[in-house]
């Protein structure tokens, strides 16, 4: 019997939808032209395909096609938005506000900006992962040029109050940028409705190809510009040079269109499966905790800590069959667990004990049933092996134990 392989790590990446691949294929050989070649039909046809994809993307996010800048992915889009805005608006100020729970692409770009002389505030989040709006507003100064807050968190799926953040930014006349990588194509994301001026996203999180993404740049009221971070032929309205990845862009556009048409139904289906997965685990295992707001989160994600079980070891009990992620970082030299979970105020022990399960378009109910059994068995196996579980069961106060930290 073949080993059953179930993929529950869709926040890391998603498989390409076969319909996306079908749309891309002709653009590798039949229509291979350079979209910037204005002098012959090979170029015109490639440009036409790119324009069509731009429309598909614009429609998904309620934007004008001219507001879409193609990039190599969300990391590049985040870098372009942050560093590009920092340079472009240097005369206005040098202060950026973001969150401790942002993706590394935002955090590390901001740290670079600090080295360049910028002033960055990393705001903490509340226990449920949400930003404290009063704290955000209080952090804005006359030097603040931009607030960067992700739409949905990659580890917990927690959705930030985008409209309220947009209102605060508008009130103080600062730009609002969002890394919406985990949200676009999964839930409605309309930057103009919530007052976002710059929004980064990517293809491979929404069943499109890897290596292609986009940055939404608001064009009117206000007209926003970012300084290019890659110099060259002046493509993408001068904001991102480099020959366009036409097959990738066609794939991204197709993925966007499929997402627009199928998102609502898919989100409903996945939230039912996610809830089943969660209930299946929580009902038969003691001492499990869901991390992050249960009310404000993505429909397909859950992040659960299983007390007194180490996440990486737990994954090893079933990773021949099921792919998930853990907030434990036992592989890194620092042994630091997930900074996102730590920012939620979890103790190190619970952060080391977490699993992130993210469902996707190609998961079926059988997958969830199989995963419930396999994960529950794994937790029980690990608890049988765990000295701290035994101590906990014997009523030992683990806080009072003098651990030999190493």
């Amino acid at each position, binding site marked *: 019997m073949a080993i059953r392989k179930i993929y529950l790590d869709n926040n890391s990446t998603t498989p390409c939808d076969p319909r996306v691949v079908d749309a891309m294929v002709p653009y590798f050989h039949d229509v291979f032209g350079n979209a910037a070649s204005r002098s012959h039909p090979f170029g015109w046809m490639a440009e036409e395909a790119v324009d069509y994809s731009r429309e598909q993307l614009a429609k998904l996010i309620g934007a004008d096609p001219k507001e879409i800048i193609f990039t190599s992915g969300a990391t590049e889009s985040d870098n372009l938005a942050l560093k590009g805005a920092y340079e472009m608006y240097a005369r206005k100020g040098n202060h950026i506000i973001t969150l401790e729970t942002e993706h590394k692409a935002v955090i590390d770009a901001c740290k670079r900006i600090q080295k360049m002389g910028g002033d960055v505030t990393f705001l903490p989040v509340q226990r449920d992962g949400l930003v404290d709006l009063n704290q955000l507003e209080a952090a804005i100064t006359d030097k603040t040029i931009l607030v960067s807050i992700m739409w949905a968190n990659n580890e917990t799926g927690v959705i930030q109050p985008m409209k309220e953040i947009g209102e605060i930014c508008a009130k103080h006349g600062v730009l609002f940028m969002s890394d919406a990588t985990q949200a676009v194509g999964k839930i409605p994301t309309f930057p103009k409705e919530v007052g976002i001026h710059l929004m980064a996203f990517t293809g491979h999180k929404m069943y499109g190809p890897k290596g292609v993404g986009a940055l939404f740049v608001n064009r009117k009221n206000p007209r926003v510009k970012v300084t290019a971070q890659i110099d060259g032929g002046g493509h993408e309205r001068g904001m991102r040079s480099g020959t366009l990845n036409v097959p990738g862009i066609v794939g991204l556009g197709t993925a966007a269109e499929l997402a627009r048409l199928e998102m609502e139904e898919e989100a409903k289906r996945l939230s039912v499966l996610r809830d089943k997965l969660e209930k299946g685990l929580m009902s038969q295992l003691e001492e499990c905790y869901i991390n992050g707001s249960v009310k404000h989160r993505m429909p397909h994600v859950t992040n659960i800590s299983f007390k*007194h079980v180490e996440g990486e070891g737990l994954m*090893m009990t079933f990773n021949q069959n099921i792919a998930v992620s853990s907030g434990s970082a036992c592989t890194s030299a620092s042994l630091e*667990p997930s900074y996102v979970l730590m920012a939620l105020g979890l103790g190190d022990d619970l952060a080391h004990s977490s699993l992130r399960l993210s469902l996707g378009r190609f998961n079926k109910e059988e997958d969830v049933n199989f995963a419930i059994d396999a994960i529950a068995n794994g937790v029980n196996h*690990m608890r049988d*092996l765990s*000295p*701290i579980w035994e101590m906990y069961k014997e009523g030992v106060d683990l806080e009072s134990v003098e651990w030999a*930290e190493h």
Partner: protein
Amino acid sequence: MAYSEKVLDHFKNPRNVGTLDKTKKSVGTGLVGAPECGDVMRLQIEVDENTNTIRDAKFKTFGCGSAIASSSLATEWLKGKSIDDAMKIDNMDIVEELALPPVKIHCSVLAEDAIKSAINDYKEKNG
């Protein structure tokens, strides 16, 4: 990162999992690591006082696969060894036997610490 066959074997079929009565004079207990660091090992030995050899060894570990395999292997090695020989077990022996990658060397260090800590506990009890 792929695990070695030996790590997988010890992880799936851990040897000598369990608990010895730590109040007994013949039992030495070592508890090392911390929950905040992501691994805690408890290793116990029962010593035959006439021959000074380790009659039984048990462990329980909270940690990753390599930590569990390291402590499982340690209990296998300890059984039948004299206390003096047990003190000589070096973490690099464990690294070699289990083919642990560099990021997992700390698991073997923890196992060596657990062995020494269990032996010291026994020695303290028996003056």
